[in-house]
């Protein structure tokens, strides 16, 4: 069951095509990573979902309904270019923004108190934004985004401007919101957070979607029967030479307390890992034998590279 369906959406600005027939499906209750290089069209797509920009073609469905103005209160959006009114007081400003999202004043006030207490920022209520540091203002901004308990949360680079401790707090809150039933779209260039948070990803490149799906499944599909191997032995060169005659190997490095040879092993489709392991164990103690799983970063770089070359050729 998907909360957000993007169906064949295209958008041009003059002659520049920002989005070309992009379709996406964001499963309910998931954290969905929207990835892509700068200028790929992510922000345009996010703005279309937020009804800031209208698509030229295609439709967007939220919770099974065609996107309409009343959906504004179902979405919480933290844009990459963000800020607050500098000369307004924190509490007043948060109340205003919450009311714009359709909350009543008393409801917004109660929720705000709860959040301010949870993040231990209650004493900021009467301060002006210009008196706060950037990180503090970002915290307020986060609270304002999630305050009205939207079904769909869209975060564009949510961790920028935070120190590691506060980034941790925000990450914890995002996961808590997910547990409470929210669906999260998450756009970032920080692959380690994608790795930690995302269940699903979509990769947009040059206005087109080039990859999407469950992150684990994508990784499984990109397994290449390649292993990192470490064998404890005395005469390294001899061992490497002997193994090189039987298998295709390439040098690699990883940290280990053992002394010996380390290499990356590429198995052909006929070879099974178990047979290879038996074979290798004859050269010494195999202390390391790990399947190479592509990281989100590898997937990103590889897929973009493939698409760029296929386009060029």
């Amino acid at each position, binding site marked *: 069951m998907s909360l957000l369906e993007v169906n064949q959406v295209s958008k041009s600005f003059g002659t520049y095509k920002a989005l070309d027939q992009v379709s996406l499906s964001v499963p309910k209750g998931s954290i969905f990573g929207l990835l892509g290089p700068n200028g790929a069209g992510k922000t345009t797509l996010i703005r279309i979902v937020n009804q*800031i920009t209208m698509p030229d073609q295609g439709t967007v469905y939220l919770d099974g309904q065609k996107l309409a103005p009343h959906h504004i209160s179902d979405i919480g*959006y933290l*844009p990459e270019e963000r800020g607050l*009114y500098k000369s307004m007081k924190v509490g007043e400003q948060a109340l205003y923004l919450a009311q*714009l999202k359709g909350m009543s004043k008393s409801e917004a006030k109660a929720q705000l108190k709860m959040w301010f207490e949870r993040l231990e920022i209650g004493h900021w209520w009467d301060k002006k934004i210009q008196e706060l540091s950037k990180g503090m203002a970002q915290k307020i*901004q986060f609270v304002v985004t999630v305050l009205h308990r939207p079904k769909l949360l869209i975060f564009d680079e949510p961790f920028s401007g935070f120190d590691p401790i506060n980034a941790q707090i925000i990450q914890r809150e995002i996961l808590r919101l997910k547990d409470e039933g929210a669906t999260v779209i998450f756009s970032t260039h920080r692959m380690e957070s994608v790795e930690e948070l995302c269940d699903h990803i979509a990769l947009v490149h040059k206005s087109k979607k080039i990859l999407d799906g469950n992150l684990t499944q994508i990784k499984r599909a990109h397994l290449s029967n390649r292993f990192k191997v470490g064998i404890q032995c005395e005469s390294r060169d001899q061992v490497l030479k002997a193994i090189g005659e039987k298998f295709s190997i390439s040098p690699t490095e990883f940290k280990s307390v053992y002394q010996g040879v380390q290499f990356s092993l590429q198995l052909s489709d006929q070879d099974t890992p178990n047979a290879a392991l038996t074979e290798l164990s004859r050269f010494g103690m195999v202390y390391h034998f790990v399947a190479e799983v592509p990281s989100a970063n590898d997937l990103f770089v590889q897929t973009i590279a493939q698409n760029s070359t296929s386009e060029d050729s």
Partner: protein
Amino acid sequence: MKHLGLIITREYLNKIRNKSFVVMTFLSPLLMAALISIVAYLSSVNNDTLKDIKVLDNSGYFGHLFTDSDQLRFEVLPDMDLQQAKTLAEATSAYGLLYIPRVDSVAALKKGITFYSADTPALGVTVAIERLLQRQANALVLRENGIDDKAIEALYFNVSTQLETFAGQETSKLGSGLKLIFGGAAGYLLFMFIIIYGNMIMRSVIEEKTSRIIEVIISSVKPRALMLGKIFGTTLAGITQFAIWVIILGIFSIIATGVLGLEMGSGADLAQEAAQIGDQESQEIALAVAREIWQLPLTNLVVMFFLYFIGGYLLYASLYAAIGAAVDSETDTQQFLLPILMPLIIAVYVGVFTVIEDPHGTIAQVFSFIPLTSPVVMLMRIPFGVPLWQQIFSVVLLFTTFMGTVWFAAKIYRVGILMYGKKPSYKELIKWLKY
């Protein structure tokens, strides 16, 4: 609709709580009063200086004519040569020396009369002297031709035309002056209001861009609602400020007249009779003024003032909002401001020069239909009586254009508020309309 209310409230409260707004609200009337008193004082000082003028009349025709006035004091020099007179005038630091040469006949006076002075003399002085000389010269020529003095005396009288419309309504020059004041004040008020609060709207749009809050806001409300909310909120703040100004100025003028009245009251008993006559005269003038005001199309003026004020102000305000959205900082606004300031300035010039000259002439009529100039020009024309169909046509045109500008401004606004970085060209602005 609920959003619009929220936005207007925020804009309004934010504006009137702003420190500089509060300071300006209470300081401006003080500054204004100070400025007016300084100008009044300076001009009175300027008028008070007596100008000493030496007259060397070698012709003997004019010497007896020169009588002193408030500003000019004449001294007719005894017969001496020009060089001596000049040295004398310079030595006594006189304002100037009027030299009339010896002539054979009056006709020879066409040229040769010279005014010597340290600097170029004030226009008022030369005009006054010339008028004096002209009248005497005319009289001399008439006398030479055998017209007797009585006839010459009878020649000079003032003709004053009575003004009356075909419908039988009496008007007067006083009335025309009042009409000008009413129309001019209305037009000028609108002009000032547009410039002051238009700029304020523009700045507040730019502020939302530079603080980067804009994307957060428009993920909750339509850009159009935000724009209209800004315009209405700022306008309400402006009206508040204006109302406070009017009240403060009112209090000032009451205090001022109170003080002046006291001064007058303390005058000597002897002066009282004269004052009573003066009172009667001023009462008559006041009555005439009241009558003239009564004769002005007051209802028409008031109704139209509000319509043009609203229409004209909103028209320009939406353009100011669009400019604010198109640029990143106030320094970039210059090239876009010029095209909207031009029609405003033209409107004021047309109003001041053409409408006074001929309130129903072609130029005045045309400019009172063009929507960008009609609010100012038509407001200046209305006291002189404008046919109803012209007024209706012009107002309809104004509000239709207003709808158009709001559409146009909203388009620019929608795209512009999300554009950062470079200043757009006009070509790009037109492209934005198609996004």
